[in-house]
């Protein structure tokens, strides 16, 4: 489904200096698979998502979806950015339908689907509100609905719950799992939270910093549907420990 093959990305800074964000990253994601990406700040997680989204070209290697090389943004890919990134002038409903309208994919049923989706995200009754009238968590839920309404086959989420408090975060994680199990798209989910990664994902990719490389891929064999009760289980602890060892082991090696 998603094939990332020996991908490297080097940014050229304003001063001409080169920043190697990613080096020789290879990763295969199956159809309908939920893959979490964890790693220290600045290790190239967002860059990896941008590469898959077709927003930036790879310096070396290749990204392919369904065997087609990614050369630019695709219709079957949707992205949830690190910040909600809502249009301040459009109400919630128009924000959610914006990508489809922009891509001329909005049909007569689009608005009803958007309303239904907003209702599942607990935003019924807020369709006519402006983003500035919503809380940060509600804005982020709108952004997630906006991505889901595109019915993507690949959903890219860049720390979608980063700005939320712990309670909303747990609630939203479970909500996301519910929506995902109903639709089953491939998900690449960037997070800073190790428990969140383990709880959500089939596999957790640990990225090491400077330059970003795949340090480890941890298979999570917890049964679905997942819940926070599983945090006490041996499998959960095993995965979390292994991820933590990589992240902090590296810190120690660098220091």
């Amino acid at each position, binding site marked *: 489904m998603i094939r990332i093959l020996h991908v490297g990305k080097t940014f050229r800074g304003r001063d001409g200096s080169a920043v190697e964000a990613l080096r020789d990253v290879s990763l295969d994601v199956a159809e309908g698979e939920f893959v979490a990406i964890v790693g220290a700040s600045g290790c190239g997680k967002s860059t990896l998502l941008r590469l898959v989204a077709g*927003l930036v070209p790879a310096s070396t290697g290749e990204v392919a979806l369904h065997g087609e090389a990614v050369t630019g*943004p695709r219709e079957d890919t949707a992205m949830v950015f690190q910040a909600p*990134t809502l249009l301040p*002038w459009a109400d919630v409903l128009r924000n959610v339908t914006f990508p489809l309208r922009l*891509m001329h994919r909005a049909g007569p049923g689009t608005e009803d689907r958007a309303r239904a989706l907003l209702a599942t995200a607990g935003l019924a009754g807020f369709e006519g*509100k402006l983003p*500035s009238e919503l809380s940060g968590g509600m804005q982020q839920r709108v952004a997630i609905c906006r991505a889901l309404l595109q019915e993507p086959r690949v959903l890219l989420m860049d720390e979608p719950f980063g700005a939320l408090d712990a309670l909303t975060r747990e609630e939203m994680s479970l909500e996301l799992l519910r929506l995902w199990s109903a639709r089953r798209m491939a998900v690449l989910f960037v997070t800073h939270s190790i428990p969140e990664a383990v709880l959500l994902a089939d596999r957790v990719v640990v990225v090491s910093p400077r330059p970003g490389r795949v340090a480890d891929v941890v298979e999570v064999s917890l049964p679905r549907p997942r819940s926070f009760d599983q945090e006490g289980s041996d499998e959960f602890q095993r995965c979390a420990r292994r991820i933590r060892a990589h992240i902090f082991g590296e810190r120690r090696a660098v220091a």
Partner: protein
Amino acid sequence: MIGTFVLWEAACWGFGIREFVLPAPSAIWTATVSVWPTVLNHTLSTLTTVLLGFVASVVVSLPLAMLIAASPVISAAVYPLLVVTQSIPKVALAPILLVALGANELPRVIVTFLVAFFPLVVATVAGLLATPPELIELGRACRAGRVQELLRIRLPFAVPFVFGGLKVAAALSVVGAVVAEFVGADAGLGYLIQTSMAFFRSPLAFGAVVILALLGILLFQAVSLAERVFFPWSSGAQSGAPPVA
């Protein structure tokens, strides 16, 4: 406001200021009302020039700003020209235009336009270029082309900036119209001020000035009202908007 007028009136009587130096508000009022139909005609004439000049600035500035924002090449070519139009004193330009285009409405509208359009262009370009990169990236992720990006993302984002420019342009249109009328006109408040002063009829000239001020305020308020009605999310107005059920 009222206090100022009371003080002004009292000062004129108290210090015995002579009428052609500084007429009292009551004198201004009497002088203006006594020739009211004439004053009204002059006001309408000026208002026509102001509105035509203002509309011309809007019609020219918005597309021009979009071109400038869309391409650094156009920006580099056009901006120096615009700055030149701003450095030339309009009082000097007005007689030349008058000779070239004849004594009709057109040169006056052009002078008004020249005075008013520049801030609108600058404000609109600033807004178009201030669009946050995240929103631009969202557009790219939704496969928006350059035209779509400009019309669906940059332009709506620039609306509060555009209205900032429109408010300045509204006030400057009044200035521009009067400048044009001073140079060559047979009607308008600028013309009225000039002819009145020539005959030492200060109260009437002051009356015209007050009407000009009112015109400026009115136009400014009209722009603000349009912003609140059509773009309630602009300029932080939404915080004061009643909650929608």
